[in-house]
């Protein structure tokens, strides 16, 4: 890495952390019903929504009720989105006259957007009309993000609760997430993106004749409004196939900078919110510290490997090394592309400004590991927070025993039920990924999608299932995933990867909320210091390394070694 790269990375991280502090405090106020700047306009809207729905948003829910409300909300959203996608040809606002999606693709896409994955087995500009984009995808971009924030808040609440057994009200949490957090941020970022060049219109595709006289049809649409929530909600589903590499989605280096910033801002802020809710900022800072350590390491490694590039191409250009520019945009270069790739896989975003499939093998491995460890380096909105709490509980359990007490986190004892749920939540991703990847590379419908031969083919399939189960949505996009086989399996993977974590987390919240708080003493395992941050990092890496070591050594590691030896497939 060049010094400038390091400096720019530190600048980015600095801006991110500084901005996340006030936002974190604001989020705390929103959910603790303290006064905020926007109350005067949002409170009436909120009340109106509750009245229309006919609910009492003050009613406290037990974890089972909370989970059921959340599931209903997501099921309803999924059904409506599925219908919208299937029937878009019969509905207005479809200037491209696109036909309805096939059942399997619609199934896959509906699940994809409801689960905050935004895996796209289709190309937006040639498949979806404006109505499906805005009333379907944009809406679910908001709501799936709100679902994630709600779960995170419920979990935080459970730690501060004293033998209450209730964890809040889902409708309240979801509504406030949308109105107070996601909507204001989206408004700001939409306008900024338009300023940078992202289109926002309902025009028909623009037909032009190029200077050399070739016909070119340039698709348009309400891109900026969707772009903003795609990024803020760590959704990642692009308006266009090329996603944030498309000059219309991400026109300038500044836009790219703002996108990576916006992807991480809510997840980073939630750490502060957590610290504030626990009345001890250090609890949040410790999590943030572990995240930053992993994040900066990841960016440095990827930047290094991308700069080192592919020796075969260097040989053709008669040089010792050239940067890996295949699948990258000139305006972003190596630095901004590497940063974006690490950010998008650290968070469960999945937007890309360069094509991960063409990354050097070891960079690809880091991206896969980012997802494989559960996207807890900042992570998805809400999802990253509850993900890292699962690891914190695991760390506390293993390390806490070593101080000779029943492990406790924030004064709550961690016992068999919590560990059972933690194991479920932590292991659902590795288990799903390994089994389905093994299945897919063993049978023809799976192997048919692979576009790159050799070890990289294994990486492509592995990445697809990692992305789906981690609700990331980015891809080694050479894989032809719009087949019945992949639409179905990846759809199910997204579903299990999302709710297979959320439900255990809500169950943990329920169990934690009903526990007493053990006062801190000299004998308490400290969860605020550097040691805990270090242990947490090690446990995260160990779990990731132990589960994925074999398959990674056959895929990216083998590919890297072959590449260095000049082997081509």
């Amino acid at each position, binding site marked *: 890495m060049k010094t400038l790269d390091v400096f720019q990375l530190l600048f980015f991280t600095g801006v991110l952390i500084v901005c996340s502090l006030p936002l974190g405090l604001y989020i705390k106020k929103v959910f603790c019903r303290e006064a905020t700047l926007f109350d005067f306009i949002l409170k009436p809207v909120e009340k109106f929504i509750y009245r229309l729905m006919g609910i009492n948003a003050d009613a406290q829910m037990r974890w089972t009720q909370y989970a059921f409300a959340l599931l209903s909300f997501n099921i309803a959203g999924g059904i409506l989105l599925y219908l919208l996608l299937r029937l878009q040809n019969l509905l207005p606002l479809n200037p491209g006259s696109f036909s309805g999606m096939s059942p399997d693709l619609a199934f896959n896409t509906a699940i994809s957007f409801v689960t905050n994955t935004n895996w796209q087995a289709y190309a937006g*500009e040639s498949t979806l009309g404006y109505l499906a984009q805005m009333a379907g995808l944009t809406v679910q971009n908001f709501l799936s993000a709100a679902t994630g924030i709600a779960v995170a808040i419920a979990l935080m609440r459970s730690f501060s609760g004293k033998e209450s057994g209730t964890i809040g009200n889902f409708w309240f949490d979801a509504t406030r997430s949308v109105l107070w957090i996601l909507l204001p941020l989206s408004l700001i970022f939409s*306008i900024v993106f338009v300023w940078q060049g992202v289109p926002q219109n309902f025009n028909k595709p623009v037909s032009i004749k190029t*200077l050399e006289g070739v016909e*070119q049809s340039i698709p*348009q649409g309400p891109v900026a409004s969707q772009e903003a929530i795609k990024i803020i909600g760590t959704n990642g589903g692009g308006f266009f196939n090329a996603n944030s590499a498309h000059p219309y989605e991400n026109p300038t280096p500044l836009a790219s900078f703002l996108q990576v910033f916006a992807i991480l801002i809510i997840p980073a802020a939630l750490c502060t919110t957590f610290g504030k809710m626990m009345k001890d900022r250090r609890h949040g800072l410790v999590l943030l510290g572990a995240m930053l350590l992993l994040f900066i390491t990841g960016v440095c490694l990827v930047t290094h490997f991308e700069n080192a590039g592919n020796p075969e*191409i260097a040989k053709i250009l008669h040089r010792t090394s050239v940067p890996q520019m295949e699948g*990258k945009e000139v305006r972003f270069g190596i630095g901004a592309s590497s940063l974006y790739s690490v950010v998008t896989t650290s968070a469960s975003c999945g937007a890309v400004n360069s*094509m991960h*499939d063409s990354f050097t093998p070891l960079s690809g491995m880091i991206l896969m590991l980012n997802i494989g460890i559960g996207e807890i380096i900042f992570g998805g909105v809400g999802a990253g927070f509850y993900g890292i709490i699962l690891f914190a509980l695991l760390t506390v359990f293993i390390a806490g025993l070593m101080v000779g007490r029943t492990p406790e986190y924030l004064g709550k004892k961690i016992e068999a039920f919590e560990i059972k749920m933690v194991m479920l939540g932590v292991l659902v991703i590795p288990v799903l990924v390994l089994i389905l990847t093994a299945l897919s590379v063993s049978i023809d419908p799976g192997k048919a999608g692979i576009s790159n031969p050799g070890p990289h083919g294994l990486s492509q399939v592995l990445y697809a299932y990692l992305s789906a189960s981690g609700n990331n949505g980015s891809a080694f996009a050479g894989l032809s995933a719009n087949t019945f086989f992949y639409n179905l399996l990846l759809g199910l993977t997204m579903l299990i990867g999302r709710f297979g974590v959320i439900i255990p987390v809500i169950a943990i919240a329920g169990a934690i909320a009903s526990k007493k708080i053990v006062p801190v003493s000299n004998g308490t395992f400290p969860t605020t210091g550097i040691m805990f941050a270090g242990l947490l990092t090690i446990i995260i890496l160990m779990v990731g390394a132990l589960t994925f070591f074999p398959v990674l050594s056959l895929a990216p590691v083998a590919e890297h070694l072959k590449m260095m030896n000049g082997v081509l497939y």
Partner: protein
Amino acid sequence: MLREMKYAFKAILIFTIILGFGYTFFITVFASLLFNRQANGSIISGENGKKGSVLIGQKFTVPRYFHPRPSNAGSKGYDPTASGGSNLAPTNRKLIDNVKSNLEQVLKDNPGFKPEDIPVDAVTSSASGLDPHISIENAKIQAPRVAKARNLDLSVVHYLINNNTDKPLLFVQGEPGVNVLQLNLELDKVSKDISNERR
């Protein structure tokens, strides 16, 4: 149970109205008032109608224009309805073959250069297939050819390259890039002005 489902459907409908329509339309109106050009796709119009979008790359093959990077958008490249990259792996023989043939093309187009002079962006395809930029080095190796084809002074071409280079803001990661469409448009303008003068 059923009651909760009823709430859920109501909530989805309410939010679809607020977020799907309210939010989107609000941004559309607001954006077209504030940044009308960008909101409508940054389209450049010339005398004979629309010339393209400043953000969307176009394909150029003739010597008098600067050539963009190799593209995988659509079968012929630079098709905005089919954005995307090659997605070729580093160990894929096709990638290496593509780089080799791209290099041959570049060397053929720009005689007098050796492989070690060619910047890597000139032989690799972009992520979107619509990359509007090329690197400054890439523009510089093409400058002699363009100057020759247009009978322009090399320094004029270099001046225009410099004029059409987009740089990232201070501290923000990214690389300077030369906007090919804008550069070519300006070249046409300059050539036209010169021929007008001569006339």
